[in-house]
């Protein structure tokens, strides 16, 4: 592993990332509170939860649009490009490392370098999350915010119901992603080093 320090996370990315993470935590807390609302078991008062959830969702949307644009027009975008040839093989190699290699202290198959910020698994999950899941959850979220935009009725089920189902399922998948994501961020030089990087920018 090279010892030279790399500047991997530019300021705009760090700001985006921590706003994004904070809003995500708010959305999960309020979202769960709404979904499991009950007279005795309210975690956050319903009307507050609705309001916080809406506000956090709007901030998240703005920051997401910012991310997409910034990622389009800066060099950071190269890290998100998937080369299909041999991708599955590379994925398997990384996967093998995580379930076996890491325990016997094998070297990382795809160490971080200037050209390669993410290992194949990271790359796949970030691309899926940022360019598939996030748009879905944002669009369905706005569908719920402006219910009149929903199709009234789909085969006897309220259209808004389907929108919501998609919103909740995506929210769940993203929450699971976040937990796994945080865990995989402990694979740096030390358990905390990657978190530090995301604050300082230096790897």
């Amino acid at each position, binding site marked *: 592993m090279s010892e030279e320090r790399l500047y991997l996370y530019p300021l705009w990315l760090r700001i985006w990332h921590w706003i994004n993470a904070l809003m995500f935590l708010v959305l999960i807390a309020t979202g769960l509170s*709404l979904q499991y*609302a*009950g007279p005795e078991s309210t975690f956050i008062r*319903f009307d507050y939860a*609705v309001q916080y959830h809406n506000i956090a969702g709007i901030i998240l949307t703005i920051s997401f649009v910012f991310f997409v644009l910034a990622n389009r027009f800066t060099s950071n975008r190269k890290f998100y490009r998937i080369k299909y040839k041999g991708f599955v093989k590379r994925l398997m190699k990384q996967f093998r490392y995580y379930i076996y290699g890491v*325990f016997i202290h094998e070297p990382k198959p795809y160490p971080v370098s200037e050209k390669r910020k993410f290992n194949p698994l990271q790359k796949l999950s970030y691309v899926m999350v940022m360019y598939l899941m996030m748009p879905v959850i944002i669009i369905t979220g706005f569908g719920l915010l402006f*219910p*009149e935009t929903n199709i009234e009725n789909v085969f006897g089920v*309220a259209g808004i119901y389907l929108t919501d189902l998609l919103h909740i399922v995506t929210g769940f998948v993203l929450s699971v992603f976040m937990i796994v994501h945080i865990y995989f961020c402990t694979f740096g030089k030390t358990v905390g080093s990657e978190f530090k990087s995301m604050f300082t920018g230096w790897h």
Partner: protein
Amino acid sequence: MITKKTRAFLLLAAMMTTFISAWSQDEAEEERVYDFAEENHQCFKCHGHKTFYYFNENMDQQIRERMNPYYIIDTVEYYSSNHWNFSCFDCHSYDYSDFPHPNELRMEPKPGCLDCHGGDDYEDLSWEKIDEEFQKSVHSTKHSADFKCSMCHDPHTYKVNARTNENIKETIQYDNGICLSCHADINKYQLIVDFVNPNVLETHQWLPNQALHWQSVRCIECHVEMNEDMLIAHNVQPKEKAVRKCVECHSENSLLLASLYKYQVKERRNELGFFNAAIMNNSYIIGANRNYYLNMISLILFGMVVLGIGIHATIRIIKK
């Protein structure tokens, strides 16, 4: 890419649906014979219109005059109401055939709903209990002389909805229309009191998505005391007692199941595992619509992820 085959299929499907809906419409409008149409027409020719004509013998000419708007009865609504097959004379004196109507008629009491609907014959709609509840309501306690059932149920136009209409949204609109006919209309409001009606849009500002709420729930959901014994509870409470807590509806045992969806709630969980399936076809109520299987699956998946991370981390620590 619509191929010929799919186009043919779509056409067929469209034809089927028009056929089926046309057929079911026929079914609903089982031949009604309006026994009193002719008899009632002698009244509708004046009371069905904004203006009416009569022959003034003193002036020896036909006079066109305005009808008191409160005395106008919509013919179409009358013939689709509960009392569609009634003659005016079932409830009003024959002497109304004369015009001008004889003076004594003014003094004659008009029949109340309970005059006919009291007693055992009509138990299914719990009339007596409704009357009891109504007597306790704000409207009745404050204005018992002026506020009668007919303020909300015009005997000429009322048509039961909640019990019979399969389209919940229509029922909601109908029932809210009853309340809004006064609370959003100063003229009718002031038939009862002298002051101006508080603007209901403003007094309900605390409710987000107000327009959506008023299409999806009825005023009575929040303003009427629950009562197990009848489909439509009738005790309208003072405003301090109105439902304000969101979770009363936005929760698994939503109060809507005991009111708005009372008639629909047959099963607690349908075959697909949806809690409160009755609500699902019409709207989505945060907190009230949960899917049992989705809940289980997400719980299991979540547990597995946490467990996996736990095991992985433990091995990492051991092998350090």
